[in-house]
């Protein structure tokens, strides 16, 4: 009998198993729209080839006495026809042979949905890239892999399953966890925790020149438009005296040398008051200033040092898991659920070898929404196509409407598509 491989959950992953449920799934979604219809048999074969290349994803969640942990899953992951309901809860012990991700196929689309404990957007993208690479190879597409897409021909390296939070932990740094409360959405929701999805596809070059016109980055531009759209749809909010707080995940691999395929991202926050007289320019000034202040290596390191420190606290470690979960859930409900109003996640520019480019039309990234954050946004650029996706629990679409109307008013051609959840 070979020895089973096992992993502790990384620092960011520890919270998710305790706080996930049907209305707050902590699942994100990446999909590749291919040029041709997807062949499920080849896709299944590709998945089975690739899963061995990603041992840190080839796991099931197990309950220990003190912590959850991952253990190598000896079963086979199976692809499924796409569900009409996006980012549904991944039930750790029942779904998909215990795997914490799903691969869907639907017409021309290959979709990956991942439970956030497993990895972050970067790791998920690497995994899906690799699956599509293998899939295309099985379809006899000759690919010159000059951009280092991880495939079964490239060996695993030790650093890929590292908990980089721990590696880059500096115990001298101090920080505060205190966060002011933020504006909450309050509007009618879809039934059964369904999520509405609206994707806008546009020309990345046009958006880039618009950002250049306002002298900001694309994330700042999109963030400022979100502020402006929220300002225009203030009827969606409950307590208007609080600031609208945007949660922007940051890939820490940009700041710290790390090759990990597990979670290694943090966030910055930017907030603006919607109850004062505001304009697009003032919102843009706010977000530019916040990004400049917060996107700083030392500040980020201090922020995750707090979390790593509590994980290392011996008194906390020896508390049985059941009690830990109750405490974590209570803290999360109290602190995290009121700290942010909206989450904007930009995965940046995805580069693929030319031969793959010919087979893939566009890529969409969805950042699953929940009752804590009813509207979330995911952005990704590929092949000069920028896709912005809104996932929303709310039936009201005024924020999305204001957002895309702003873009089209600025002369950007937007193509909208949506999953067809309608009010009935």
């Amino acid at each position, binding site marked *: 009998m070979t020895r089973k491989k096992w992993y502790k959950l990384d620092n960011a992953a520890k919270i998710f198993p305790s706080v996930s449920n049907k209305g707050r799934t902590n699942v994100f979604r990446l999909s590749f729209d291919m040029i041709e219809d997807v062949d499920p048999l080849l896709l299944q074969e590709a998945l089975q080839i690739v899963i061995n290349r990603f041992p840190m994803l080839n796991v099931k969640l197990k309950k*220990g006495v003190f912590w959850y942990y991952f253990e190598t899953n000896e079963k086979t992951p199976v692809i499924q026809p796409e569900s*009409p309901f996006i980012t549904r809860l991944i039930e750790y012990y029942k779904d998909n042979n215990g795997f914490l991700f799903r691969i869907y196929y639907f*017409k021309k689309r290959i979709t990956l949905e991942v439970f956030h404990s497993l990895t972050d957007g970067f790791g998920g993208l690497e995994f899906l890239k690799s699956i599509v690479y293998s899939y295309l190879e099985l379809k006899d597409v000759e690919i010159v892999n000059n951009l280092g897409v991880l495939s079964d021909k490239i060996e695993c390296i030790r650093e890929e399953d590292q908990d980089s939070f721990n590696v880059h932990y500096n115990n001298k740094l101090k920080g505060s966890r205190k966060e002011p409360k933020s504006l909450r959405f309050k509007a009618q929701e879809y039934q059964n925790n369904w999520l509405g999805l609206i994707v806008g596809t546009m020309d990345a070059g046009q958006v880039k020149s618009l950002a250049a016109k306002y002298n900001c980055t694309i994330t700042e531009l999109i963030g400022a438009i979100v502020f402006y759209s929220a300002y225009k749809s203030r009827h969606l909010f409950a307590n208007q005296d609080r600031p609208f707080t945007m949660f922007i995940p940051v890939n820490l691999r940009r700041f710290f040398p790390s090759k990990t395929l597990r979670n290694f991202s943090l966030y910055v926050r930017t907030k603006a008051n919607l109850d004062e007289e505001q304009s697009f320019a003032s919102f843009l000034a706010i977000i530019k200033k916040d990004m400049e202040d917060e996107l700083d290596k030392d500040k980020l390191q201090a922020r995750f040092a707090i979390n790593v420190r509590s994980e290392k606290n011996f008194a906390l470690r020896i508390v049985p898991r059941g009690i830990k979960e109750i405490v974590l859930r209570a803290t999360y409900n109290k602190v995290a659920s009121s700290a942010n109003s909206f989450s904007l996640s930009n995965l940046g520019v995805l580069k693929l070898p030319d031969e793959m480019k010919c087979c893939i039309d566009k890529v969409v990234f969805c950042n699953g929404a929940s009752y804590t954050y009813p509207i979330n946004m995911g952005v990704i650029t590929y092949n000069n196509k920028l896709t912005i996706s809104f996932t929303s629990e709310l039936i009201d679409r005024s924020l999305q*409407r204001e957002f895309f109307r702003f873009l*089209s008013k600025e002369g950007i051609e937007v193509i*909208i*598509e949506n999953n067809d959840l309608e009010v009935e």
Partner: protein
Amino acid sequence: MKECSQCKVKVNTPRKTCPLCGQILIDDSKGKAEENLYPSYEYPNKKHNTAVRILLFLSIISITISATINILTFMGSYWSIYVVLGVLYGWILLRATILSHQNIAGRLLLQLFTLSIITYAIEKLANSDGWAMEYVIPFLCIATTFSIGVIILIKPMRYTDYVSYLFMTIIISWIPLIFYFTDMIKVAWPSVAAASFSLTTIVGMITFADRATKDELKRRFHI
């Protein structure tokens, strides 16, 4: 592709109205229908489990009736609590044990916990002299250790799934003996029997344990 005159966006959908504002879309595709980009959905039929509902209703009624009679004819004993405990145990037996998907060793451990607590509660309620702690709980521990041990011998392939439950049962088996030494119970032999049985089992485990057992315990108990 269709276009919305209000939002000034193109819309790639078989729908007639704009997904953003509900405006009727202008269609310049000349009859060429767009494809559905997402799977269509149906409203789920909520399954009402009638049997469970009837059982739940009967449980509530039996508790209410016995509580009512207990209060109206109060003679100094709260006997209706026995009914509550019985109903509660029935539910745990049915839902969390017989119908549960958890592995069998975990279910046995759950039964050990539940039965210990319920017999202890009945003993206290009846003001009797320690039969639960003295006899029932030690023998439950022996029975659980024995059953999990037998299951492991029968299904050695799933050894690693069961071993940590066996380990926990063994630890629990020592608790009655601690009660004996702190003078909470008077009869020694069942507690001593439980402790020595668990000691035998653990010695057996260590003697015959392989790499896999040690690894499994390390994983389950990592702090």
